């Protein structure tokens, strides 16, 4: 079986997260010093060449994004770490922040130097009050040591809204408003927090940065799958023997994740389906288990890597019931700003409940398909665009489960 490779979790469980000296003794803040010896353009070029792509779900080239913010003229720029982690089944960012908070701060400080920012924010979900304490303690230690230079970091707490993980909704929330997404473009690297150029990156993305700066772009680009190099933390939930987390290279297949690292299906049952990337991910049948967990490989089978959550269902599970629950999630989390999502998620939930209660008709399934397609291209933000994915893929791959429940 393939082995774990720990880059973002390199210090996890090995150092005391609340003692910056242990981080420094493990080589911490060496990368920031090295970065400060480079010109911002060279630094950005290095990050770009590593081909590190965002670990928050959209998979955008990190160095390219930094370059936009670097080029944008402004008197103030901001670095924001997206620690909202609301995707059900996901807790990878919590692991990083609990186990090695300084690596996140160092990654943010390197970004700040690259784009010319002096103020940073970590937007941490309100469900993680103890992580907020850890982060504040880590920031206080970094300040006392003087390692961050003129870069300040403040932690802001979310308050239980999944949509605030969307970068522009997150920015609205830091500004103290309802977390409703903005219309894009303009994108945050041009117009972001308080209308200033702003980089928003995921926790796992930032935690990769010190290792890339230290060991070089070529080293990183050579790990895993070439179009989405590096590692990914996967969190396993559902009917799997090892309900735990692993950091694996991105050429690892779904099969290896579930049956190798995950130890297979629990209770001696057979595999039925896996949903990857959290609740907005597609349901994947056994036929696609040999797909690597890289971003593009997942897209090629109509799925998405998303946050790296891996939710496994065994043969005994009722996929219609699970999908109905997921439909409720989106109806509840829709922010209501745009009609296709506000109305669509509600109708989708109604239809799924009706089918799940044994009262559905064949026409309801056709209606779900049509509604889902319309939502995927007409909703304003990724929440509404992705909401139909579990419903549509469950119908596509597990139509027998639906047929069995029709009236």
């Amino acid at each position: 079986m393939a082995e774990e490779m720990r880059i973002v979790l390199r210090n996890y469980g090995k150092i005391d997260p609340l003692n910056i000296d242990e981080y420094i003794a493990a080589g911490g803040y060496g990368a920031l010093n090295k970065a400060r010896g480079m010109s911002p353009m060279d630094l950005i070029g290095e990050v770009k060449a590593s081909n590190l792509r965002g670990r928050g779900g959209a998979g955008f080239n990190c160095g390219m994004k930094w370059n936009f913010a670097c080029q944008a003229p402004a008197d103030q720029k901001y670095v924001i770490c997206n620690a909202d982690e609301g995707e059900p089944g996901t807790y990878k960012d919590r692991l990083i922040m609990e186990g090695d908070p300084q690596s996140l701060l160092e990654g943010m400080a390197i970004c700040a130097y690259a784009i010319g920012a002096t103020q940073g924010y970590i937007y941490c979900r309100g469900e993680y009050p103890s992580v907020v304490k850890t982060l504040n303690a880590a920031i206080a230690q970094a300040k006392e040591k003087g390692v961050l230079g003129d870069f300040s970091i403040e932690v802001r707490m979310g308050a239980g809204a999944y949509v605030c993980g969307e970068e522009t909704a997150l920015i609205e929330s830091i500004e103290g408003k309802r977390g409703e997404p903005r219309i894009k473009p303009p994108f945050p690297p041009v117009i972001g927090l308080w209308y200033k150029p702003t980089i928003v990156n995921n926790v796992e993305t930032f935690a990769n940065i010190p290792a890339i700066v230290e060991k070089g772009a070529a080293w990183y680009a050579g790990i895993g799958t070439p179009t989405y190099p590096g590692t990914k933390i996967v969190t396993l939930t559902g009917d799997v023997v090892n309900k735990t987390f692993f950091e694996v290279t991105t050429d690892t297949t779904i099969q290896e994740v579930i049956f190798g690292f995950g130890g297979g299906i629990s209770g001696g049952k057979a595999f039925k389906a896996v949903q990857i990337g959290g609740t907005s991910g597609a349901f994947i049948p056994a036929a696609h288990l040999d797909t690597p967990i890289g971003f593009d490989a997942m897209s090629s089978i109509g799925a998405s890597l998303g946050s790296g959550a891996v939710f496994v269902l065994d043969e005994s599970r009722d996929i219609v019931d699970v999908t109905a629950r997921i439909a409720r999630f989106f109806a509840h989390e829709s922010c209501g700003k745009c009609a296709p999502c506000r109305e669509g998620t509600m109708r989708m939930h109604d239809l799924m409940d009706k089918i799940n209660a044994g009262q559905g008709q064949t026409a309801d399934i056709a209606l779900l398909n049509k509604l889902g397609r319309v939502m995927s291209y007409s909703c304003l933000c990724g929440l509404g665009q992705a909401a139909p994915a579990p419903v549509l893929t469950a119908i596509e791959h597990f139509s027998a489960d639906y047929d069995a429940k029709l009236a």
Partner: protein
Amino acid sequence: MNYQEILAQYADKPGGMIEAFHAIQEKLNYLPQEVIIEAARVFDKPVAQAFGVATFYSMFSTQPRGKYVIRICESAPCHVAGAAEVVAALEQELGISMGESTADGLFTLEFTECVGQCQATPVITINGAPYLDVTPARVAGIIMACK
């Protein structure tokens, strides 16, 4: 500290209304109407906007809640792990339905989506602290320990 003093502490923080609401809820467990109106004044925003913020986020409540707010995760991984049975056990133990508070003002039951402790489903939180691998059999003991 009264709520005016708490709000005043955040007045100079850009976009600080949400942080201020967290601090108020830490004390009062909910956001009374007069607090929201005062927040609008302190942060120089329309009252409608302050209510908009207070009602947008699921962790904020504009209704009084119990001293212990128990939230049950019903996201898919907790759902398949048996969250519904935990809900039933909590409702039975406390004699209230989801969304209600006990008459003695001690407990409130709420649903939540994933709280990021999915390695040990099903999960509940009590005033933000997670309880992992909860079973119906453990519910009475957990409630007892609060009292």
